[in-house]
């Protein structure tokens, strides 16, 4: 493929930095935090060696990092930031400013657990706690998808029908710190795919604007409706952007979700992020034994792939949602979203919630095989407890 200039052996973090350089942001403002640190280090090195021409702002916090991106976006600049975990939570106030102001900032988030207990390892409770922030959220599975999605994220965020910030999520360590062969597109190919950001939603001397203003109860709801509609409309834009990326750069990711061997599957596991690779291996093993199983990777959680999920799971007997998350005191948030989407399937499918991988605990092939085992046993019975903490190390009864 001529669109790809070189093939490199890099980490997920490196891949993100390479994607950012190709997207030519005018402004980068980020504060380092484990396990995202290498992204800001690589970008700083690129600025120093002259291969990335951008205004790289050193800020004193994540709150400032996103604020700086918002300010730059308000004059029409393409902006990027990156964070993780506690840093993401420190940005939360600004996240609503970015989405409400329709500033198409792109952020990389390295998924990491939240304190307390203090823990730097991977789960997805940081970003999943921010599903209501008005950002588009995509979860990538490997370093190649990370690089490609940074480029796609700008195309989606800056689309005039969308004008909404995008968060690209990578599993901390599992993906940010593991090395893979990655195809790096040429600058020319990316420039063709991603033209410079143009918007009328900006401050300029020629057309001064009143930005980030107040709305009273008389008008506030309509602004929120507009944001809601923009993310719903983003579903089509995401599909189009993914298709043209596939045509121009040779890789297509399936839009809002990716389905693996689900056509005739009786038992389907729903995943997000890097654990999907392990789940596919287990699906292949079980298929070899004659079991009809499949896996659906949710790529986007906002917009949520309601129709796609519904049609793919219509004939499944039982479904499992595997997430590195728990909305403490209820159930996993992904599970809540999936159940809401599937409630109109008109079937009595049993859906189980597998809460696993919290604080970096490994999810093994054996764990996933057991999840499928459990799904086949609940297809006919209806358990009282649908929320299962996988691999609890101790007895609880």
């Amino acid at each position, binding site marked *: 493929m001529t669109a790809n200039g070189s093939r490199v052996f890099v980490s997920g973090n490196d891949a993100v930095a390479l994607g950012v350089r190709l997207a030519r942001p005018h402004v980068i403002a980020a504060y380092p935090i484990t396990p995202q640190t290498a992204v800001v280090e690589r970008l700083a090195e690129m600025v120093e060696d002259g291969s990335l021409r951008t205004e790289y702002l050193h800020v004193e916090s994540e709150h400032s990092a996103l604020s700086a991106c918002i300010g730059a976006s308000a004059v029409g600049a393409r902006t990027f930031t990156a964070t993780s975990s506690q840093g993401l939570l420190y940005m939360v106030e600004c996240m609503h400013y970015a989405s409400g102001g329709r500033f198409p900032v792109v952020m990389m988030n390295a998924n990491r657990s939240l304190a307390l207990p203090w823990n730097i390892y991977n789960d997805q409770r940081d970003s999943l706690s921010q599903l209501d922030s008005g950002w588009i959220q995509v979860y990538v599975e490997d370093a190649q998808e990370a690089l490609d999605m940074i480029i796609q994220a700008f195309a989606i965020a800056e689309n005039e029908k969308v004008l909404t910030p995008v968060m690209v999520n990578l599993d901390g360590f599992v993906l940010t710190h593991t090395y893979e062969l990655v195809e790096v597109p040429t600058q020319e190919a990316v420039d063709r795919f991603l033209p410079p950001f143009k918007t009328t939603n900006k401050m300029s001397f020629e057309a001064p604007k009143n930005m980030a203003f107040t709305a009273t109860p008389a*008008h506030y709801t309509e602004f929120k409706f507009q944001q809601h509609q923009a993310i719903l409309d983003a579903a089509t834009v995401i599909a189009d952007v993914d298709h043209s990326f596939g045509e121009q750069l040779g890789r297509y990711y399936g839009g809002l979700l990716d389905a693996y061997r689900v056509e005739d599957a009786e038992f389907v596991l729903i995943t997000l992020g890097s654990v999907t690779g392990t789940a596919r291996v287990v699906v292949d093993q079980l298929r070899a034994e004659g079991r009809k199983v499949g896996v659906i990777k949710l790529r986007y959680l906002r917009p949520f792939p309601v129709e796609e999920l519904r049609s793919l799971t219509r004939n499944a007997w039982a479904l499992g949602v595997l997430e590195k998350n728990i909305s403490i005191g209820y159930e996993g948030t992904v599970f809540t979203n999936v159940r809401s989407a599937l409630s109109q399937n008109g079937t009595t499918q049993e859906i189980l919630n597998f809460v696993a991988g919290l604080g970096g605990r490994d999810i093994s092939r054996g764990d996933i095989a057991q999840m499928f085992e459990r799904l086949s046993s609940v297809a006919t019975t209806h358990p009282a407890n649908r929320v299962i903490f996988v691999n609890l190390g101790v007895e609880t009864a």
Partner: protein
Amino acid sequence: MSRHTVRPPFQPKHIADFPCGTCDEAGHLVETLSSWRTSTPEVNLQLCTGCLRCYLLCPEGMIVKKNGKVAIEFDFCKGCGICAHECRSDAIRMIARRE
């Protein structure tokens, strides 16, 4: 002193009448703001010397020059009473009333 321009209230009929997010034409106000005024300044023109101390000190810019004296506008007057307190001729007094 240039006065605030208050445009007639924004009355959108369709969602497309709204700007995309909080980004719209600058340089004007969309509504007045004085709803929490509980007392209202009144100028006694017999006592007013036209010194313009109140004009300079009004935090809302609601005092205007008129025929060598002052007059008060009320679109943004919060009834703070600074004008009455600062007047050296006791020409302004606050009348307790809600409008």
